[in-house]
Structures are given as C-alpha cells and as structure tokens.
C-alpha cells in the first residue's frame, strides 16, 4: 500500500488540478486525473522523501481562511502605502527566529509571509533556525516578530508537525 500509493493526498490534489485544467468533470477525465495523480507521485517519489501528513485539517481550513483575509488586507495596505508618502515608510530587515522542523512547513511560512501585509522573506539562515525578512513599514520589531510567530507559525506547526 505504502509503496503503491506513496502520497494519497498528492494524488487527490493532482486529480483536482487535472479536472480544473480540463474544465470538466466527465467520468473519463476523472479516471485520467486519478491515473495521473497516481503515476506522477509514484515516479517522482525520490523528490518527496518525507511523507506529508496533515494532522489537523480543521486548523488548516482556519489557516487558509485567515490567509485569504490577510492577502486581501495586504493588497489594500500596500496600495495605500504606494499612493501615500513613500518617504515616510520605515523599512527594516528583521531576523525572525523559527522553530519548525519540516521543510514543507518552512517553505509555506516563507511563502505566506510574502503574501501578507508588509513582509517579504529574503533569506533562510544556513542552520534553518531563522528567516531574514524585509518589512516595508515597521513600527515595532518585536510586535512584527510576535505577529508572524503567533499568526502563521503556530498554526503551521500544529498542522504539519503537531
């Protein structure tokens, strides 16, 4: 089972992507999608050495909701800052300590921090203990770090690592 179906979650996601690409839910397409969803992880197994496991699907759902809200908010904030006075911005480089273990959770954290208000991940420390972020307009560095840690890192840790 483990050998034949290495990543069940990935299989489902790939099948859904296939159906969306084809814009159809015909039985033939579903079969083809599932077939591809099985074959691609099966042959690309080497690239996914660690098993991806979602421990708390509900937290993931809540996290996606928070993220969607933050992305929309970020768009308005950045738009206002661009239209406002760029001279008054207070950009800063901030080292955010992280304690995530899995690569996947780390890349999701770096990705989300980039879509959310005012931050951009720039560099992952070689020891994987911190991410260097660039913030567009930051008032208090500690508040910034606290927000990243509680709002994004904590749920990610719960979802992927427990």
């Amino acid at each position, binding site marked *: 089972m483990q050998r034949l179906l290495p990543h069940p979650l990935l299989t489902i996601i790939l099948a859904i992507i296939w159906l969306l690409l084809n*814009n159809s839910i015909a039985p033939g397409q579903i079969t083809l999608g599932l077939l591809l969803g099985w074959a691609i992880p099966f042959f690309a197994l080497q690239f996914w050495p660690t098993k991806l496991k979602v421990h708390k699907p509900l937290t993931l759902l809540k996290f996606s909701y928070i993220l969607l809200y933050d*992305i929309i908010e970020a768009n308005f904030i950045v738009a206002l800052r661009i239209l406002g006075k760029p*001279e008054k911005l207070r950009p*800063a*480089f901030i080292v955010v300590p992280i304690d995530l273990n899995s690569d996947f959770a780390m890349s999701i954290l770096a990705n989300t921090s*980039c*879509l959310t208000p005012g931050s951009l991940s720039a560099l992952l*420390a070689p020891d994987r203990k911190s991410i*260097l972020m660039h913030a*567009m307009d930051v008032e208090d560095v500690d508040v910034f770090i606290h927000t990243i840690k509680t709002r994004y890192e904590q749920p990610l840790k719960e979802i992927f690592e427990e």
Partner: protein
Amino acid sequence: MNIALEILLSVLIITGALFTFIGSLGLARLRDFYTRLHGPTKGTTLGVGCLLIASSIFFSTQGDGFSIHEILITFFLFITAPISAHLLAKSALHLKVDSLVPLPDEAIARKNSQHKPYQSLD
C-alpha cells in the same frame, strides 16, 4: 446578458485593473530595491484575482457550463509570486544592492565567510 451582470463584471475588471496598476506604480514610487519588491508581489494578487473572477463569471454565463479553471491561475500565482520575490531579494542581498536601511549583518557576515576572493589555480 442582463444589466446587473454587466455592471458586476465591469466593477470587477476596473478594480482588478486599478490594483494591478497601483502595484506597478509602486516600482516607480517606492525608493529602494527591497521595498519595490513589495508592490508587484502583493499589490497585484488581488488585481489579477479580480480579473480572473470576472473571466470565470463571464464564461460561466455564456452557456457552455462552468468555467473554473481560472482558480488554477490564482493558485499558481500565489505559489510563484513569493518565490520570485524571495529569489530577487536573496540575489539583491548577495550583490549588496543599496538599501535605505543598513543591510543585515547576518547576511553580510555570511557572504564574507562564503565568498572568498578568487584565486587562480597556479
């Protein structure tokens, strides 16, 4: 096509265009490389999102069934925009591109330790 739908589509397209424009305007208005990265990565996601929702609604109401493959474009955009921003920021740090604020010591120290001056083999 009824008038309400047309108004909805127009509003979506105009909002989308506006956000994409503001995002690009950031490139001209902001003052250093690192802050400029914020405009196009964040300011445009909602812009493109609005345009794609408009496209999805338009083609779904044309009678050829649902058209939802636009969702995929949004999905891919959310994945790729941060990655390109990350790589741009990383290479800028590597090249020590000028910034309004001092560059982080950590990055500079790392660069110095890794980047030994070129030595010829002989």
